[in-house]
């Protein structure tokens, strides 16, 4: 088999997951300018919801996934209403948001661990029977293809909505300046609530995707979130398309690095890339 092809496929698969993480994250950032660490927790919520429904209650696949995504969206929306909105009302600084969101992540992860135990679980009901496809000498599974398709679909829909619909324009108005937007008659709080709902749903999907591809654990959210953040920064914070491209670029460099050097340094490589971008190109590759 061709090693280069397989490594490229590995990068594409990993990139698809990071892209899902980056998409939702960018959505929130572009409207509120705030890094929500709780995003990682919504991903875990989505994944565990599916775990409970699909594996626990033995519901069928599609309804479980839909409910999982909605559950994640609802949690994100609730957190926004209860925790972040009061902070926004008194113009709290970004640092305050960051720390509050850290609290959110910690609590949600711990509650999941209490309810479901910290054990690693898989979402798929039958390992070993997953369909694989061979592409130019490299292998990719059906699940991974679906994740890729989902990521590209969401990116397209999101990009389209933000640019061409009234709702999208309202979102961009709030992103520019939420006070002015309110004056003009846009209900900023409602828009932001919707944004959180949507982005948390995407987070949930990302978590579910990881769950089907590898597995779930209460602490799964943070790792996914960090990769999403790095991808978003590389691609250009706030730029939906940029985040996706950044995700693939990150995955490519990570896998190339793991190929060249030893696998132990994978995390270090990812963060070294982040630091390089922060130092030399903080606006990312495709600034808004």
């Amino acid at each position, binding site marked *: 088999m061709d090693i280069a092809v397989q490594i490229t496929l590995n990068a594409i698969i990993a990139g698809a997951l990071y892209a899902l993480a980056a998409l939702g994250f960018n959505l929130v950032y572009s409207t509120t300018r705030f890094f929500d660490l709780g995003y990682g927790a919504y991903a875990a919520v989505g994944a565990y919801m599916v775990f409970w429904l699909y594996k626990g209650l033995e519901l069928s696949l599609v309804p479980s996934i839909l409910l999982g995504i909605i559950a994640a969206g609802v949690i994100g929306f609730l957190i926004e209403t209860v925790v972040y909105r009061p902070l926004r009302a008194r113009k709290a600084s970004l640092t305050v948001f960051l720390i509050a969101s850290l609290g959110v992540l910690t609590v949600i992860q711990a509650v999941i661990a209490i309810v479901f*135990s910290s054990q690693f679980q898989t979402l798929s009901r039958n390992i070993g029977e997953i369909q694989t496809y061979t592409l130019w000498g490299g292998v990719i599974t059906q699940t991974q293809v679906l994740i890729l398709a989902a990521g590209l679909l969401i990116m397209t829909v999101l990009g389209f909505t933000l640019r061409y619909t009234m709702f999208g324009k309202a979102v961009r108005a709030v992103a520019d300046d939420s006070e002015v937007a309110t004056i003009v008659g846009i209900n900023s709080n409602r828009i932001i609530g919707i944004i959180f709902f949507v982005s948390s749903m995407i987070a949930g999907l990302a978590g579910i995707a990881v769950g089907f591809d590898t597995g779930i654990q209460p602490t799964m959210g943070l790792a996914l979130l960090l990769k999403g953040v790095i991808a978003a920064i590389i691609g250009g914070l706030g730029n939906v398309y940029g985040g996706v491209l950044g995700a693939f670029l990150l995955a490519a460099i990570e896998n190339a690095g793991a190929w060249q050097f030893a696998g132990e340094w*994978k995390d270090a490589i990812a963060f070294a890339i982040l630091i390089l971008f922060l130092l030399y190109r903080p606006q990312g590759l495709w600034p808004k």
Partner: protein
Amino acid sequence: MKNTLIAVAIVALLIVGGARVYTAGPSEKGPIKIGFIGPLTGDAASFGVVAKAGVELAIEEINAAGGINDRRIEAVYEDGQCSPTEASSAASKLMNIDKVTAILGGTCSTETSSFAPAAMQNKTVVLSYCSSAPSLSNTGEYFFRNYPSDLLQGKFMAEYAYNTLGARDMYIIYHTTDWGTGLKDVFSKRFQELGGTVVGVEGSAQEERDYKTMLTKAKASDATFIYAPMYPDGSSVAMKQAKDLDLKARFIGGDTWDDPKFQAAVAMLGTFIYPKLESPAADDFTKKVQAKTGMEEVVFCAAHAYDATHILANALSEAGTDPDKLADSLRATKYNGLIGHVEFDEHGDMKGGSYVARKIENGKSEVLR
């Protein structure tokens, strides 16, 4: 200033209050107290939780049979979280507040390395049921472990691979914990001493879930065998990804693969070989632990912890709670339990254990002859 005073007062009250409640020392009557340290939460929680279940099962049996010289035995369970700070606080509480006679623990070598020196100073017997770091052999005269140091397992697998499986080239993929790193080092050295070649070595964090590129490298090296001392969760994911990549090399692993959850997960993925201490079958025990914890996973520490409790109880009934006498009695142990025959050498290390190779096929594990 007032806030400070109030906060300090509350915290102090909590601690002193707590300490007051537990100042009763070890007495001649009343239950014998032993301590348990293991990771009950955090990444390694599954190990600690099943080990705790093993201890609980053993204690139930011992008390049902009359206890130790008519005294009940009780355990105080503390969370070590596989962290030096937590483990050392846990041990301090167990020794100074609960005044335990002995400590069963820790699971992780990092836990044991952190509190054992203090326990030696305090003359508290420590019996670790799962710590494998070679450096623990020098801990002290009150230290014992019924889990062999990595030196034994790594050497066994290297020799088995070279002599029995005929392996001459080997790729190694391991988890970068003390257990995995220790095994990687010992195996690698022994395999090369015998004449084999180690074609490549890749490590990853225990929590890693994307092994694809490492496995791709292994595939590219055309190694016939891969030694994979990895924990069960990472292993199940890695094996699945290996199958997806159509990796033909044969996998041999570590004793962590003696876990029903892992064996079920890889049921359709091929045949796997791993070492285990020679011992009688223990299906019944596995089911009891699963019932107690509510988890499918029963990692190997459970059986070791169960045996360790019995070994300790036997020594206690023979020698009483005096640390020196207890230590001497432990040193003279000859016990046959779930993990086979146990004796301790002058360092407190387990001797007398011998490994056998087992293979996993179709979700079941059986001994290879």
